[in-house]
């Protein structure tokens, strides 16, 4: 069916009221500040048959991202460039609302938003992945495997993708193409997602918050504070001021996340 929905039917009215009430007092259902993300733990190299991998735990949300690097043919219009391809699987293990079957619109949006951040942020130097111009290049497959869904898959997956890429090695020796080498990473784009709850904007929404949010905004920024990708979701709207505020917050929060990814720190925001 692929009719997978992130939100799960009706949230009890009482919980909705409770979350709004907390927001009006400046706090959240799990006690966080509006601009505070959940504890973040990154385990690189979890899946050793992959050329790179990272298990991301963002609160109770768990995502495993694997990177495979294989040989293929370049696209005719980019003979001097390796290939990046991103796929997301919302396997039914991760949530009672995920259904088996080919990727639905939720999984496709997730994969494309993560892909956009990595691609437009030029995280990988794809020109260094050419083996023979126009003939043979390295293909980088990013596969997002969601294990436990407690909200905000965009950030968990985007963080996992970047972390797995920094972990990845190009298996050149296996193909008699010289020594293996680290995947050439040149930028570090990090997504940060916000939810609009009533008139408040909160970072890294958990499942309860996501379920009652009217609008969602993901902003991906790099180590220079430049913006590389945005994606607004849900059927509510943002004011222009809210958008500006979210973009500003994303630069700050992105910086903190980036240091966890690069330091391979074991998490604990702050």
């Amino acid at each position, binding site marked *: 069916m692929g009719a997978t929905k992130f939100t799960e039917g009706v949230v009890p009215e009482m919980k909705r009221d409770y979350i709004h009430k907390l927001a009006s007092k400046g706090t959240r259902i799990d006690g966080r500040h509006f601009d505070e993300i959940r504890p973040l733990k990154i385990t690189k190299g979890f899946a050793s048959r992959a050329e790179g991998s990272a298990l991301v735990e963002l609160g109770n949300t768990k995502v495993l991202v694997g990177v495979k690097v294989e040989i293929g043919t370049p696209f005719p*219009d*980019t003979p001097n460039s390796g290939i990046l391809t991103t796929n997301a699987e919302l396997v039914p293990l991760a949530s009672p609302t995920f259904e088996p079957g080919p990727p639905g*619109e939720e999984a*496709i*949006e997730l*994969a*494309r938003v993560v892909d*956009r951040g990595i*691609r*437009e*942020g*030029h995280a990988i130097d794809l020109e260094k992945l050419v083996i023979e111009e126009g003939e043979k290049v390295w293909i980088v497959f990013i596969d997002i495997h969601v294990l436990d869904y407690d909200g905000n898959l965009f950030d968990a997956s985007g963080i996992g993708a970047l972390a797995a890429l920094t972990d990845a090695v190009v298996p050149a020796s296996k193909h008699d193409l010289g020594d293996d080498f680290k995947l050439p990473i040149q930028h570090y784009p990090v997504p940060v997602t916000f939810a609009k709850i009533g008139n408040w904007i909160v970072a890294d929404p958990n499942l309860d918050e996501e379920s009652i949010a009217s609008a969602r*905004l993901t902003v991906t920024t*790099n180590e220079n*504070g*430049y*913006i*590389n*990708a*945005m*994606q*607004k*979701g*849900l*059927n*509510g*709207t*943002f*004011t*222009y001021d809210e*958008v*500006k505020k979210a*973009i*500003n917050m994303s*630069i700050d929060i992105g910086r903190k996340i980036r240091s966890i990814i690069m330091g391979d720190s074991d998490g604990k925001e702050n």
Partner: protein
Amino acid sequence: MGMKSDIKLIDDNGLRIDGRLPNQLRPIKMEVGVLKRADGSAYIEWGGNKIIAAVYGPREAYPKHIQDPNKAIVRARYNMASFSVDERKKPGPDRRSVELSKVISEALESVIFTERFPRTTIDVFIEVLQADAGTRVAGITVASLALADAGIPMKDLIVGCAAGKIDGVVVLDLNKEEDNYGEADVPMAIIPRTKEIALLQMDGDMSYEELITAMDMAMEAAQEIHRMQIEALKRKYTEIEEVE
């Protein structure tokens, strides 16, 4: 975004390859009520884009288990004709059109009084017959007219518009070459009266200041496009009155 090339997108006079100023829209032509079978329809030519939209509904949602007892479901389907692009596109939905259909559905729903039509769907079909960059924002703009033509009650006519960056300059409404070789694109959908933002995507590389400049440009152009929508609707009305 960002394919390398030696193409100069802005000339020495600050003009773009199609002669436009940075904050200038491409020519836009709209027509309401172009199809017989649909409940509402409209057609738009926007630069080299030719896009037709049709609305069916509110009609009973089927199969029944998808019905929402509290409101209508808005389902937009963005589709490109195989021959709408330079290299023939295989028919049927690809990942890009699935994503665009989703964000367009969400944007349109934000202005529709869905709670008036529980257990129904409002289906919006957007067919791109000829593509020239900016199809999603042109699609939203024309879909909005088709919804009005179908008599669907809305808070406002929603408007799509994009801005971006080429050769380091922030510009409005990228065409195909600018989209291919430029540095950033920011498609938006705006509710003209309240200036709320119903769709927002971005890809490329922009500083905060550049991004704000681009969004300002799109917000402003939305008012102009909105006036064209009103004109198109009026033409249809007038015709009808003349006939009567």
